């Protein structure tokens, strides 16, 4: 089958699963991120600082494992750009691990300046605060080098999308991307960048009223247009597996009252808009979403696909029978001592959850570290999913 047809077939499979329709086979969405690097025989420092090495790792992965979708095509880091700039940022890596430091771009008092006067505030306040006096010392040659690396990086994004799509038939996940605007709720941005985990946790108790005003204004400004766009659309766009991809992480540090105050109102509006147009949104629920299951249980089947991480896939199914599930493969399965056990578990998942519909196989965590999966297990699971035996 040529890659275009394969891509279309895969999109249809994801769409049918999201709609709880019967499918001839269950698709496998690979939640593989930097594990690909180790599996290809490299270390992180080699791949994160050399786009060509990263490209080799992605090719190695797709040559070895047949999957229907891929979380990351090697583009989830910008170290080549930040290192050209020459000042340490929030992300760090070594040969085996990658991470980000908890950080805050604002204080509670400057949140509204950031939102209402974004361009000036970022340029004159946030960046000098982050980099200190050295921000003002960047020579023109450094800026030119940084911009050159940045162009190479953006071209890399385009090339990897083309390679994975045209050679391997990997479809695009959803229409949102960094260049055209991601779906970024205030609550997520507050934790990821504006206040950080520690400060946001405190502010949700001490400055609840201010935060409520901020999240409302931010979401009206950023999410409001998305809702209008969805409502004005013609419905599902079959170029993509899903009509949206939404990342949820901040709920892990919220109680239900905080979730209702700072997050749910606008999230619900957006999800209802997708539902109204017969569109399907994939939510990547990092950490655990189980204690918030009730909020999602009133949507019609076909509106939501929940990509779960630490939650038990069967508990999610019984708590949210209306929501399609992406997940199921735990680290324990991917690191089972016997390949046969990994495949038998996969077979059981497909036979139970898959038989009910609304199930897409995926890894229950972003495969990032060397020991997140055994290569032999992963290969056997992929072969099984593509019609091979145990």
């Amino acid at each position, binding site marked *: 089958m040529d890659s275009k047809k394969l891509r279309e077939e895969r999109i249809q499979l994801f769409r049918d699963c999201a709609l709880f329709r019967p499918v001839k086979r269950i698709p496998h969405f690979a939640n593989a991120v930097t594990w690909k690097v180790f599996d290809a025989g490299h270390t992180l420092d080699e791949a994160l600082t050399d786009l060509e090495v990263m490209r080799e790792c992605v090719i190695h992965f797709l040559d070895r494992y047949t999957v229907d979708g891929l979380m990351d095509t090697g583009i989830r880091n910008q170290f080549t750009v930040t290192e050209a*700039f020459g000042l340490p940022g929030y992300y760090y890596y070594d040969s085996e691990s990658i991470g980000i430091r908890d950080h805050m771009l604002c204080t509670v008092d400057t949140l509204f300046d950031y939102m209402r006067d974004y361009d000036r505030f970022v340029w004159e306040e946030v960046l000098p605060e982050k980099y200190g006096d050295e921000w*003002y010392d960047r020579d023109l040659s450094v800026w030119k080098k940084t911009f050159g690396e940045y162009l190479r990086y953006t071209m890399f994004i385009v090339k990897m999308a083309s390679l994975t799509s045209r050679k391997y038939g990997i479809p695009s996940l959803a229409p949102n991307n960094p260049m055209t605007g991601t779906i970024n709720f205030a609550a997520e941005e507050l934790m990821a*960048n504006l206040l950080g985990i520690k400060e946001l946790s405190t502010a949700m108790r001490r400055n609840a009223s201010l935060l409520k005003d901020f999240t409302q204004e931010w979401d009206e400004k950023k999410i409001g247009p998305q809702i209008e766009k969805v409502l004005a659309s013609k419905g599902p766009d079959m170029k993509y597996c899903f009509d949206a991809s939404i990342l949820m992480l901040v709920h892990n540090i919220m109680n239900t009252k905080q979730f209702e105050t700072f997050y749910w109102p606008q999230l619900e509006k957006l999800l209802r808009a997708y539902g109204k147009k017969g569109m399907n949104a994939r939510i990547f629920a990092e950490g655990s979403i189980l204690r918030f299951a009730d909020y999602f249980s009133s949507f019609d089947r076909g509106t939501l696909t929940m990509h779960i991480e630490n939650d038990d896939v069967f508990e999610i199914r019984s708590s949210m029978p209306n929501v399609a599930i992406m997940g199921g493969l735990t680290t324990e399965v991917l690191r089972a001592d016997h390949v046969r056990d990994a495949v038998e578990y996969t077979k059981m998942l497909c036979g139970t959850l898959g038989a009910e519909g609304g199930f897409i196989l995926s890894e229950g965590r972003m495969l990032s570290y060397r020991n997140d999966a055994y290569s032999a297990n992963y290969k056997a699971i992929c072969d099984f999913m593509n019609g091979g035996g145990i």
Partner: protein
Amino acid sequence: MDRKDCFYASYPEGYDRLVKKIIPFWLRPAKDMLMRLLVTILKDG
């Protein structure tokens, strides 16, 4: 160097001066989109 001696310290004047110096002429029509993501990378990365 401190803020007052830095040619790109202010917004939008200094920022615009810098953009003109680092973005090739043929890419200028896309400068807003290109700079938005670059600034985001420098800010959040």
